[in-house]
């Protein structure tokens, strides 16, 4: 079989998916950061606006030890890159919560779609510090009108139309009459004719207005975020997976030749089985503009879904998704940073990962620190943890129905590449190669209720260890 023929034969039918709201993640637009603003450790949550331009909600939470040291927290939005990133507008003073003195909140206007940052400046007894949080602003969808509002506006529209017709009719019927003079039959008839003409004018205005509204809505629909599309092509014989990206059209600044490495790789590819009992974390190479190629490990026959994380030079991060079917593939052994996990082979004798949590139920939209302790075979905190792609660990939050996917690091849910653009002089999120603590934490908040699986990956003694945990979110 020729290589070409092998490629052709290997093309599988892909199950297309409706585009889902995504940025660096899927269905999880909020940004959660655990970072340092000077001497102060802060947890920042930014909820980007649903429509752009729109208002982002910002929450800045201090640690209990800093609560009395901080005088004020200022927040300001500005583009992540370009000319607009040079000049910041006047910052807002975030309001301290009367219920929780550690919590500061504010609202910021984000004016364009793309890569933005929220700069958090803290001043207090231990000096001043700044933390920049990259925030992708992606118009998610056009908000539908509620029934009561629809009824209200429709009622007012009828009132205004009827009022217009009556006024025109009154003008023609009575406006020119001398005081005290009653309109005669002829005047009343002229009034009725004028009313009829006014009705036609109103009808025409309504039709034209409706068309204009449709044009505006269509124009905005083009501005609503459309994820990159991907066509996976499997070469069964050689055990390779090629991913061809296609831009379905969104903002002009999005191109396919500007991807930058995010903790060492242009693409982080996650392949999961529908039951989330298999996970592969691979790093395909870019072989052409918008085309990536990965060597696959052994892959059982089945139906899978892929999630591929990419970061543009602008700092905008995207996750492309696709479902696909494959026969059994005889691949090659994993190398480098690639890793896999399956439920069947999850139990090992050299340790485990434990989710350190209390009994409080998990809630949506709430910043939560997900802490995991890595234990050795004796149940003691592991002492052989190493950096895995520059970080103590990686967490992947996937909803059981796969409507939500988020790739999170200890510094937060923003991609490292975007954080480096936002804070080029700071490497606070990175960690030195000294002995790592056995507990690794990830700041995240579930976007919607449901059942999730959390995959946690760390590197121990040169190999990647993965733990899987189930979470129910109220």
């Amino acid at each position, binding site marked *: 079989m020729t290589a070409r023929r092998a490629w052709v034969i290997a093309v599988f039918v892909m199950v297309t998916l409706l585009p889902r709201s995504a940025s660096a993640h899927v269905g999880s637009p909020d940004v959660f950061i655990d970072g340092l603003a000077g001497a102060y450790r802060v947890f920042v949550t930014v909820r980007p606006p649903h429509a752009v*331009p729109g208002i982002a909600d910002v929450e800045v939470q201090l640690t209990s030890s800093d609560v009395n040291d901080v005088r004020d927290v200022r927040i300001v939005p500005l583009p992540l890159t370009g000319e607009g990133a040079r000049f910041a507008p006047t910052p807002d003073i975030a309001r301290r919560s009367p219920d929780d003195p550690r919590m500061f909140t504010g609202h910021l206007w984000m004016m364009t779609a793309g890569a933005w940052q929220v700069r958090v400046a803290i001043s207090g007894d231990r000096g001043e510090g700044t933390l920049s949080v990259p925030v992708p602003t992606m118009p998610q969808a056009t908000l539908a009108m509620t029934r009561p509002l629809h009824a209200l506006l429709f009622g007012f529209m009828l009132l205004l139309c009827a009022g217009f017709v009556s*006024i025109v009719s009154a003008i023609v019927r009575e*406006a020119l009459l001398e005081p005290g003079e009653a309109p005669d039959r002829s005047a009343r008839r002229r009034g009725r004719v004028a009313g009829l003409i006014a009705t036609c004018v109103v009808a025409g205005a309504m039709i034209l207005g409706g068309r204009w509204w449709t044009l505006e809505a269509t124009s905005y629909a083009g501005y609503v975020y459309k994820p990159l599309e991907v066509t996976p092509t499997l070469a069964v014989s050689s055990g390779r997976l090629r991913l061809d990206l296609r831009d379905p059209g969104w903002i002009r600044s999005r191109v396919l030749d500007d991807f930058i490495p995010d903790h060492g790789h242009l693409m982080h590819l996650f392949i999961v089985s529908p039951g989330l009992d298999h996970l592969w974390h691979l790093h395909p190479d870019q072989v052409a503009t918008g085309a990536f190629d990965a060597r696959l490990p052994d892959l059982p026959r089945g139906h899978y879904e892929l999630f591929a994380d990419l970061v543009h030079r602008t700092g905008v991060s995207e996750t492309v998704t696709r479902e696909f079917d494959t026969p059994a593939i005889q691949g090659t052994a994993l190398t480098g940073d690639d890793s896999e996990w399956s439920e069947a082979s999850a139990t090992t004798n050299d340790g485990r990962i434990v989710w350190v949590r209390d009994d409080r139920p998990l809630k949506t939209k709430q910043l939560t620190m997900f802490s995991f302790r890595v234990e050795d075979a004796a149940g003691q905190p592991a002492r052989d943890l190493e950096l895995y792609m520059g970080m103590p660990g990686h967490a992947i939050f996937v909803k059981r129905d796969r409507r939500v996917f988020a790739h999170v690091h200890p510094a937060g849910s923003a991609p490292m590449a975007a954080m480096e653009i936002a804070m080029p002089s700071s490497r606070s999120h990175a960690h030195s190669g000294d002995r790592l603590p056995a507990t690794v934490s990830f700041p995240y908040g579930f976007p919607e209720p449901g059942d999730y699986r959390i995959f946690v990956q760390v590197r121990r003694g040169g190999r990647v260890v993965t733990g899987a945990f189930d979470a129910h979110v109220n």
Partner: protein
Amino acid sequence: MSLAATAERSSVSSVAQPRIPWYLWCAALAVTAAYVGGYWDISWHRSIGRDTFWSPPHMAIYACGVLAGLSSGYLILTTTFARNAPLRDMSVRMWGLIGPLGAFISAWGGVAMLVSAPFDDWWHNAYGLDVKIISPPHMVLAAGFFGIELGTVMLLLAFMNRSSDDARRPLQKLFLYVGGTVICESLLLKMEYIGRPHMHSALFFIAVALGTPAMLVGIAVASRQRWACTIMAAVYTAFGLAFLWILPLVPAQPKLGPVYQQVTHMIPWEFPLLVIVPALAIDLILQRASAWRPLVGGLVTGIVFLLSLIAVQWPFASFLMTPLARNWFFGTAYMDFSTPVDSYYARYEFFPHEPTSVQFWRGMLIAAFITCLMTWLGLHAGRAMRRVRR
């Protein structure tokens, strides 16, 4: 003469006092608040960027609705329900209510303004916060403004047309002042298309021609004042210069990004258009054209309006692009914080709306046609407005 007719005359004379009733002042104040609030709001967005429901310019806009509602509500309710209401015989009937025609039109404008608020709020949530003036909910608001302005014009007109010469003069002044604010509002609405970079394009002249000449000529003819167009254009120029020179004295800083220009004070709109010159030309024509047929009058007035506007605005636009105009007097150095440094506006260059001369001259022909159509409509409307009594 019948007894009833005598009573009507008596009623008219009792109303036609030299003093201007409070509700006419109130209505005139409403249209002033609408224009000041609208201009201020645009300046607010150019300088500070972010606002709230309770921002001062918004309060001025709401004041328009309140004042218009107060005057029109008073007139309609008292005329409908009060015994021996002085305006009853000079009113129209609508939906069981009785009141001056202008009051009904103003009330309609107030309702339109009211409706635009939830519509605009939903629009922000559905399609994002405002980044442009011309949007459907803003047009509903603009319809409200124009309803209130037209209502005020009609209210004043009816009083003026019923008045004796002594009483007419102060009403005429107020009428022309309100007419001036109508011109202000009509040009403010089109500011996205009549700014400095557009002034050497046919699109600019088409934008100016839409509506404005009709309002100018219509109100001028209705007023019976020899220099009506000049007075209205002077009102527009005075407001524009006042804003241009006063607003920069107020400190302001942008509160949202992207920030491309350093802003330390309120940013006004540009030097007012030189419409006072074509307005003067129209006045001179109208003084001699009372016997002309509207078709001829409209054609001549329209062409003179356009040619005189081109004659003064074209070279003035070239001057505005020079460093000589970058001072407090002409104000071309003022740019809103979001003006990109490589934009035509920031580079003091004209935007090539019509890349070829054919496209340009076709556009100018369209502008000439629209201007003549507007002045023709204005002449007709003005003559009809002279006969309004209620």
